[in-house]
């Protein structure tokens, strides 16, 4: 019974140790189309914000291209700037 009274002060860090890879380098994708909104949905969270590299695992070069594409598609109204329940 002593075991179940253990309260962790900080949340135990759950190890997600599957190997992250940059899907653009792997699939040989060279250009990210800003007009293709449902492909870009994979890179934004449900508030419409850009996902960080540590979650998506993309390389720096392609993270910049994704960021630019998402900002362009926001400008022409395909993606919202901010929303509460996107997906």
């Amino acid at each position, binding site marked *: 019974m002593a075991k179940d009274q253990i309260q962790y002060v900080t949340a135990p860090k759950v190890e997600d140790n599957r190997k992250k890879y940059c899907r653009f380098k792997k699939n040989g994708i060279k250009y990210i*189309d800003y007009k*293709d909104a*449902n492909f870009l949905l994979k890179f934004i969270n449900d508030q419409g914000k850009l996902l960080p590299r540590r979650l998506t695992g993309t390389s720096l070069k392609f993270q910049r291209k994704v960021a630019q594409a998402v900002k362009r598609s*926001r400008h*022409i*109204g395909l993606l919202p*700037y901010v929303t509460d329940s996107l997906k």
Partner: protein
Amino acid sequence: MQQYETVIILTPLLSVETAKEVVAKFSKILTDNGAEIIQEDNWGLRKLAYPIEKKSTGYYHLTEYKAPGELINKLEVELRRDERVMRFLTISLDKHATAYNDKKRSGAFQKKTKTEEAA
């Protein structure tokens, strides 16, 4: 001649004919000044992700063309002057982008699902 791509969003208030006429006006500006239009794509009326100028839908039109650099300024002045155009975006295309567009035009993505198509 550099290759460019312009997306134009027109207000939904005007009828389809006047929308086509506005689009024809801009492609005429392009062709008159020595641009070569490669592809015109009409997405028609689409729902916007957020209201632009208090409207929730917009008439989308995409034009891909080869043009001399200084023509872009002239085109954008015209686009700003015309109040039926709510928003526009002009992009210069690098070699990856042009390769992607050619592949898309040649239907290389039909077999794959739309989400995978950014290859």
